[in-house]
């Protein structure tokens, strides 16, 4: 494991760039623990001050120090992405492994449902969800909802691996030596699926953060918990762009773009590592 990571860092420029970008973002989010102000206090510093030594990212029109506020926002955003990813990974793993291993009717039924979830446009459904929940909308609820909707694509990927594992000899050996289905799936098949699981995690975090930012920017989430999207929402509410307070928009967008590209590079380089054929094709 550590050796793989070291090799990836040394020989794969995409992986190294992704790690650096995410490292900066993660370090910045950890700064939130040292913030001198609680995230929701406003008018603690003079409003609309451009970036300077005292306020490295300037201050907002609501009198918040953008540097510290942003550290809270990126922490919540990252946490959101991880919660959605972990929950939906569990779903994708169970459905993908069971469908691939069982085959036949179970596989067909599960994959029909799976394809349905891939096709359905999720955004209107999430908007409908907000519309019904309104003020009761919370961060955790949205994460749960998105986890329930966001497993399908990766379940299909995992299933395709499980399909080929089923025909391998060790599976037969396992069956004949009396292992239960659960044992075979968890002890024999899971280790083969884990690398793919990691790379889909990165893509899933990207997906969920992207949707969260979009919903928040429109004001369709809990707008009192600072996330990157909520920050942009408030900047738009105060017409920061027209008022010339560019830093209020620039730094959140910069940070979230760094996150997206970082996660994406990690996913791409991991895929490449899993499938060495594409490595050979590139050189």
């Amino acid at each position: 494991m550590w050796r793989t990571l070291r090799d990836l860092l040394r020989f794969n420029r995409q992986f190294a760039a992704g790690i650096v970008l995410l490292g900066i973002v993660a370090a910045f989010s950890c700064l939130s623990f040292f913030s001198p102000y609680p995230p929701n206090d406003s008018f603690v510093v003079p409003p609309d001050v451009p970036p300077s030594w005292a306020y490295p990212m300037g201050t907002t029109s609501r009198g918040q120090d953008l540097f510290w506020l942003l550290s809270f926002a990126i922490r919540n955003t990252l946490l959101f992405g991880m919660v959605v990813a972990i929950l939906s990974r569990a779903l994708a793993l169970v459905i993908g492994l069971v469908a691939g291993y069982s085959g036949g009717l179970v596989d067909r039924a599960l994959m029909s449902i799976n394809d349905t979830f891939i096709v359905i446009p999720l955004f209107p459904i999430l908007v409908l969800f907000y519309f019904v929940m309104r003020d009761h909308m919370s961060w955790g609820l949205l994460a749960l909802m998105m986890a329930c909707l966001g497993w399908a694509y990766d379940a299909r990927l995992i299933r395709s691996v499980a399909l080929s594992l089923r025909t391998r000899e060790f599976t037969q050996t396992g069956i004949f030596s009396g292992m239960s289905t659960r044992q075979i799936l968890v002890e024999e098949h899971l280790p083969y699926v884990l690398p793919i699981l990691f790379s889909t995690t990165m893509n899933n975090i990207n997906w969920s953060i992207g949707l969260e930012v979009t919903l928040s920017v429109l004001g369709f989430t809990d707008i009192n918990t600072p996330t990157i999207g909520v920050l942009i929402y408030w900047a738009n509410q105060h017409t920061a762009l027209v008022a010339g307070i560019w830093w209020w928009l620039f730094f959140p967008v910069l940070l979230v773009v760094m996150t997206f590209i970082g996660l994406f590079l990690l996913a791409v380089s991991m895929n490449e590592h899993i499938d060495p054929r594409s490595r050979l094709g590139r050189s």
Partner: protein
Amino acid sequence: MPGYLVYLLTRLGQFALVVFIGINIAFIVTHATPIDPVEQSIAAATQFGSTSPEAIALMRQSLKELYGLEGDLAHQYAAFWSRILVGNFGPSLSAFPTPVSVLIGRALPWTVSLLVVSTVLTWVMGNLLGGLAGYFHRSRALRLAGILAMAFHPIPYYIVAFLLLIVFGHVWPILPISGGSSMNMTQEWSWAFVGSVVSHAILPVASLALVGLGGWFMGMRALVSNVVTEDYVTYAELGGVARRRILAAYVMRNALMPQVTGLAMSLGAIFNGAIITEQVFGYPGIGTLLVSAVHAGDYSLVLGITTVSIVAVSIAVLLIDLLYPLLDPRVRAR
């Protein structure tokens, strides 16, 4: 039974399943929440000033009818479906008494044309460039294109649209950034009007294309670089088949099949992106309508748009699926 018929029936079945599950999700979302939407609407309406108890009772009754909350759950479920099957979502609350279907019908052509133009453009460009990049993998210009496509690909639609808005609306204002056409023009088939529609569509289409291009590009590049190593390609090269012909008829044609399937699978996500992009640029389509409906608290309009989106995307996927056998003879012969 001939292969094509089996294929057709399974696709139709899948289409019915998508619509069925999608509508059920919409039902669950609207009915299984612990919050009573009727009481919430009443609370919002009676927040200011005092309202007589009779008026509140009347309001509660009409809202219950509107939300389809009368009777037990089975009754509500049946009522929900009957409204959807007929396509009647009642009058819009915010634009009373215009029916929801009229509002959606007015917005839908804008969204559909924006989606079709940007999707076709992005898919063709991405596959063409990706195919070239996979075949001529030493070309520097194509490598640069690959890096650029990769940089934009992971960024969500909203952020890209927003960046374009800032660049072409504030920093270098050369393109219109709001609306579907100029305000003071009558909608007619004249050069001036069509020109105005096209110039208003440039930024929305560009933001959808910038995000979408990378996915097709990278997918096609990977597929082509796999196909190129096949024996029949080497054989064709040794046999002196023209390179253009090898690329078009031997390599690209075979690599294109998974990309068609990919298009069907990602239509939902592209639709999500179009909704957001419309909202950023104030484009008069479904997305802008949806957001304004939420802000106006217009329940029937929000539900109507959600349902129409699910059905419309499933129809588009079905169309692609039905075209697939024309491109891939193996499905026909099976």
